C-alpha cells in the first residue's frame, strides 16, 4: 500500500484507539442518559419511555428531540445490549470516520496532502471531538453528514438520491440543520463545485434541483413542525428566543424612560431605542460565536477550550492565509453559527462545534506555513498540554460534578436494590432531570403510561414503578406505625425533617466531597 494510505490509516487507528480506550467515559449528562435509556426501551419494545410506539418526536427537559439520534442508539443497543458499548459505539464509529472525511475535505479545499493529513490528525486527537464521539449527541452525526455532503456536492458527478437522503437525515437529526443546510448547500455549490459557479446555477441543472429540494424540505419540515402542539412554542423558546428576551426589551424601555425623564424628545427616544436593537444584538451574538475565545478559551465555564491553547498561533497564520487568498472556506463558520443570530446571548457550543472541521483546516494550513522547527515545537507543546489535560482526571470529575455526576450511579443502584420497599428520591439531587438516570441504571420497564401524550414537550415524569420522585412541595411526617419506606433525600428535603425523629441510614458524597444524598428511614410522606 502507498505510504500516504498508511499514514491516514494510522491516524484513523489512533482516532479509534483514543475513543475506544476509555469507552465508559465520560459519565452521561441527564439528557444523554435519556437517549441511552430510551434507545434500549425502543430496541426491546418498539415504544419510547412514555409508552408511544415508534414516535418521530421525543421528549426532553429542554425541547422536542428529533428522532435520528435515538433510533441510532436503539439500533446499536439492539445489537450490543444495554451497556456502554451499545450506547456509545455508533458515535465512536462516527468519530473515527470524521477524520477521514475531513482529510478528504481539506485535500479538496487546499489540494495539499500535508494539510489533509494534519487536519485529519487534529480531528483525531481534538479533546472535544473525542468527547462528543463517546456520548450520544446530534453534533457528531451532523458533522459527518455535512462533511459527506460537502464531498459529494463538490464532486463532478452528483448523485441526487444520495444528497436528498443525506439532507433528509440531517433535517431529522437536529433543528440546526433546518437553518443551516440551505446556505451550506448553496455555498458548496457556488464555491467548491467542480467546473461550476453561478452560471451553472442559472440553468436548471442538478445543482439547482438540490437547492430547490433543500428549500422545499426546509419549508415542509418547518410548516409540519409548526402544526404540532407546542411546535411554535418549541421554536420560540429554543431557536428564535431573542424576540422573547424580556431582559433585552426591559432594557430598551428602561434606557428610553431615562431619556424621557431627562426631558428628551419622545420621537428621538423612539428612534434610538426600539426593537431594532434585537437585530443588532442578534448580529453581535452571531459574530461572538466566532471570536477566538470560542475555540481557544473557556466555554460552558470549563477552563480549557475546544482547542489546545498553543494552536492559536497556526490558527492566526491560517486565518491570515485564507483572508489574503482564498476566502471561500471562511464562509462555513459563518453559516454554521448563523442560528445564534436568533438566540439569546450566550455561547452555543453545538453551533461552534459544527465549525471544527473548517477550523481544523485553517489550523493545518497555518502549520503548513510555518518552519519545521516551529511546527515541531508547537506540536510538542500541544502534546504536552494534551497529556496534562488527560491526566487531570480528578480535576475533570470535579469541574463536571454537577453536569456529569459520576457519584450518582451508586446512589441509584443502591436505591433500586432495596427489596420490598417503596423508595422516594428527591428530584433535585442532580442538575436537570434525574429520571433518565433511574431509567438507565435500573431495569426500568415501560408500563402502560396512564397519561396519553402524543407530543410531550418538556415533560417530566415522577413515578417510575417502585421509585417516586419527591418534589419541592413534598412534606414529611413521623410514622404512626411501622414503615418500610426509604428516602434518598437532598439537603432541601433533609432540612424539612429536622423536627421529625428519623433514622439516617447512609450518606453519599459527590466528587467535591460534599454530602449530597441522605438515606433516611422511619419517616412517612404527608
Amino acid at each position, binding site marked *: 500500500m502507498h505510504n500516504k494510505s498508511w499514514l491516514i490509516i494510522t491516524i484513523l487507528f489512533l482516532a479509534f484507539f483514543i475513543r475506544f480506550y476509555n469507552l465508559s467515559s465520560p459519565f452521561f449528562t441527564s439528557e444523554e442518559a435519556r437517549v441511552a435509556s430510551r434507545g434500549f426501551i425502543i430496541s426491546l419494545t418498539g415504544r419510547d419511555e412514555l409508552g408511544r410506539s415508534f414516535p418521530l418526536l421525543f421528549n426532553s427537559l429542554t425541547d422536542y428531540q428529533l428522532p435520528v439520534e435515538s433510533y441510532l442508539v436503539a439500533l446499536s443497543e439492539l445489537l450490543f445490549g444495554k451497556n456502554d458499548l451499545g450506547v456509545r459505539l455508533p458515535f465512536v464509529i462516527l468519530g473515527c470516520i470524521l477524520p477521514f472525511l475531513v482529510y478528504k475535505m481539506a485535500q479538496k479545499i487546499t489540494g495539499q496532502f500535508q494539510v489533509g493529513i494534519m487536519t485529519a490528525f487534529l480531528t483525531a486527537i481534538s479533546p472535544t471531538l473525542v468527547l462528543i464521539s463517546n456520548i450520544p449527541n446530534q453534533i457528531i452525526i451532523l458533522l459527518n453528514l455535512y462533511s459527506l455532503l460537502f464531498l459529494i456536492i463538490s464532486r463532478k458527478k452528483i448523485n441526487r438520491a444520495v444528497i436528498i437522503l443525506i439532507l433528509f437525515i440531517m433535517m431529522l437529526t437536529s433543528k440546526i440543520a433546518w437553518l443551516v443546510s440551505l446556505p451550506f448547500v448553496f455555498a458548496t455549490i457556488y464555491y467548491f463545485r467542480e467546473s461550476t459557479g453561478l452560471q451553472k446555477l442559472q440553468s436548471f441543472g442538478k445543482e439547482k434541483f438540490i437547492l430547490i429540494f433543500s428549500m422545499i424540505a426546509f419549508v415542509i419540515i418547518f410548516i409540519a413542525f409548526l402544526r404540532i402542539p407546542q411546535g411554535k412554542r418549541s421554536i420560540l423558546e429554543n431557536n428564535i428566543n431573542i424576540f422573547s428576551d424580556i431582559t*433585552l426589551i426591559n*432594557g430598551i424601555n428602561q*434606557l428610553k424612560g431615562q431619556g424621557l425623564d431627562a426631558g428628551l424628545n419622545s420621537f428621538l427616544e423612539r428612534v434610538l431605542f426600539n426593537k431594532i*436593537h434585537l437585530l443588532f444584538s442578534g448580529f453581535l451574538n452571531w459574530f*461572538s460565536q466566532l471570536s477566538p475565545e470560542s475555540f481557544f478559551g473557556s466555554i460552558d465555564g470549563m477552563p480549557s477550550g475546544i482547542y489546545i491553547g498553543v494552536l492559536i498561533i497556526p490558527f492566526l497564520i491560517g486565518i491570515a492565509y485564507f483572508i489574503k487568498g482564498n476566502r471561500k472556506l471562511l464562509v462555513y463558520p459563518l453559516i454554521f453559527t448563523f442560528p445564534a443570530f436568533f438566540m439569546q446571548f450566550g455561547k452555543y457550543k453545538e453551533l461552534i462545534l459544527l465549525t471544527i472541521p473548517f477550523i481544523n483546516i485553517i489550523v493545518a494550513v497555518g502549520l503548513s506555513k510555518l518552519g519545521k522547527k516551529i511546527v515541531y515545537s508547537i506540536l510538542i507543546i500541544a502534546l504536552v*498540554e494534551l497529556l496534562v489535560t488527560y491526566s487531570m482526571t480528578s480535576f475533570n470529575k*470535579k469541574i463536571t460534578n454537577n453536569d456529569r455526576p459520576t457519584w450518582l450511579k451508586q446512589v441509584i443502584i443502591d436505591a433500586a436494590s432495596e427489596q420490598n420497599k417503596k423508595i422516594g428520591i428527591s428530584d433535585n439531587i442532580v442538575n436537570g432531570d434525574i429520571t433518565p438516570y433511574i431509567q438507565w441504571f435500573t431495569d426500568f420497564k415501560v408500563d402502560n403510561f396512564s397519561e396519553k401524550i402524543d407530543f410531550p414537550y418538556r415533560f417530566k415524569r415522577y413515578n417510575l414503578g417502585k421509585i417516586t420522585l419527591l418534589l419541592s412541595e413534598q412534606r414529611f411526617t413521623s410514622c404512626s406505625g411501622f414503615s418500610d419506606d426509604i428516602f434518598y433525600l437532598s439537603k432541601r428535603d433533609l432540612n424539612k425533617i429536622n423536627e421529625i425523629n428519623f433514622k439516617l441510614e447512609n450518606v453519599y458524597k459527590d466528587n467535591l466531597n460534599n454530602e449530597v444524598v441522605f438515606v433516611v428511614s422511619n419517616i412517612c410522606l404527608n
Partner: protein
Amino acid sequence: MFKLNTRLVLITILLLGCFLRFYKLDQFPVQLNHDEVTQLYDAISIAHTGKDVYGNFMPVIFKSVGDYKSPFYTYTTSIFYRIFGGDELTIRLPGAIFGSLTILAVFWFVLSLLGNEQSSSSNKKIALYAAFFTAIAPFELFFSRKSFENGAGILLMLIGFSVLLMHIKNKLSTRWIYLSLFIFSIAVYTYFSHAIIIPLLLLIFILIFRKHLFPNWKKYLWPLIILLALYSPIIILTITNPDVSYRTKTVFIKQDVNLGELIKFTKTGNSFLDALFENRVLWDFSLSRYLSQFNPIYLFGNGLDLTNQGILGAGPLYLFQLPFLIFGVIYLLKQTTQTLGAKFIFFWIIIGMIPSGLTFERSSPHRVIMVFTMLNIVSAIGFYFLLSILRGFRFYLSKLLYPLIFIIMLLNISFFLHIYFINYPNEKSQSIQYPFEQIARFAWEQYDKVDTIVFDPLYGIHAPFIGTGAHYYLAYFGNYPPEKFQKEYRSGKGERETIFDKFSIRKVDWREDQNLKNVLIIASPWSLPIANISKDKIIKTFKYYDGKKDAFYAVKL
C-alpha cells in the same frame, strides 16, 4: 467635484473632537470619581508642599487609595492647578487636552506608518478617517472626559513611534531617536502597564524594522542606554517597593474567585502534579480572559460598562465600525506595499491586550486603550477600502449607499451620546461614587455644629460596597489645606478607621454609635437600622443619581 484641503478637514475634525471632549466637561461625568478626586487633591498637595497627602516628597509613585498611581498625571495636574486653580474642571482639563491632541497624533502616526510617500493622497485620506474615528470614538470620549491617566500615555506612545518612523522613513538625524526615546521614557510614567508594554512594543518595532535599523546599529546604542537609565526608577521601584508589589499581586489574575476555585480542584497531594495542574489551569484561564477581550459583544456592544442592561450599552468602538474593521484587516493582509506597518499594527493589538488578560477583572478596558486606538486605525483603513469599493458600484447604488452609511453612523453616534450623557449616570451612579460630593459638602456645612463627623462609605444599591477615597472627597470639597491634612491624617482604632480633623471615616456600628453625643453620622442603610432611628434625628437623605433610592442618611446625635 472639489478637493478638500487636508489641513482644513483635520482642523474641522479636531474642532469636532474638542467639542465632544469639552462640552459641559464640568457637568459630565456628573461627579468627580475617586480616581479624579485623589489625583486632584494629591496634585494640589504637590503644588503647595511638594509632597503627596501622606507627606512623601515628590513621589515617583502615588500611594493614593492604595492603588499606587503612576506619577505623570498628578504632576501634570499640579501644573494645571497652578494655572487654573483648584476647580473641579482642573483635573479634567489635562485629559480632555491629551484626548484632543491624540486626534492629531493619530493622524501623524498613520501618515508615518503607512506613508511610503508623505504626499500620497490615499494615505492622507486614511489618516483623516483615523483622526475622525478618534475624534468621535466612544472609548476616547469616555476616558478623555473622565481624565484617565492612560490617555496621556497613548498620546506619547503615538508621538514616540511617529518620530521613530519619521526617522526611519525619511532618514532623519539621530536627534529624532533621542527625541522619541525621551518621549517613551515619559510615557512609561503615565500608567503602570505601559512600563511593560512600551519596552515590548519597542522590541517588536526594532525586530520588524530591523533592516532599516541594523546597518547603523551603533548609533542607537547611546540612545538605548539613556532610555534604560530613564526607565530604571520605575522598574526598580516596581520590583523593590513592597507596596507596589502588593498592589500588583492584588490585581493579578490569581485574585479571580473562579480561578481560585478551579485551582483548589487541581490539588492532588503531590506537589509536582499540583504545580503542573495549577499552571495548566492558570494558562487556560489567562488565555481565555485574554481572548475574551476580542469578543465583538465586548468591543462593540457593552465593553465600556456604562449601563446595567446587558448588551444594551456602549462598547469601546461603534457597531458601525465592525464591517470597517473586517475590511481593514483584509486590506492590511492583502496589500503588499506596507507590510511592515501592517505587522506593527497587528503586534500592537496582540501585545496591547496582554494586561487585560493578566488581571482579575473580567474586562478592563482602561488597561487596553492602546489596542482600541489601533482598532480605530484599522477600521479607518477598512472604511477607506470600503469606499473605494463603493466607488466602483453603479452610480445610483453608490448614491444610495453613501447616505445610508452616513445615517447609520449618525444614529450610532447619537445612541452612544445618549447612553453617555443620560443613561450612564443613572445606571452607574454607584460606580462613580455618587453622592460622595454632596456628602462632603454637607459635612462641611455641619462642621461647626458638631464635635465629630463619622462617615461610613459602605453603600450600594443591590449589595454593600466600600467606596474609596472618602478622606480625599472630604478634604478636597472642604478646601482643606494639604499641609494641614498631611499632619492630621492618621489611622484610628475603629474598624477601617482613618481620621483627620473632626472627621472619622470608619465602619458604623449602630449598637454602640447610637449612644454618641453631638456627633454627625453619615452612613447608608447597610449600616443604619433606619426604621429604628427617630425621624427627627435624620437631618438629611442623600439619594443616588436617579433620585429614587436612598444612598446615605445623615443622623445627628
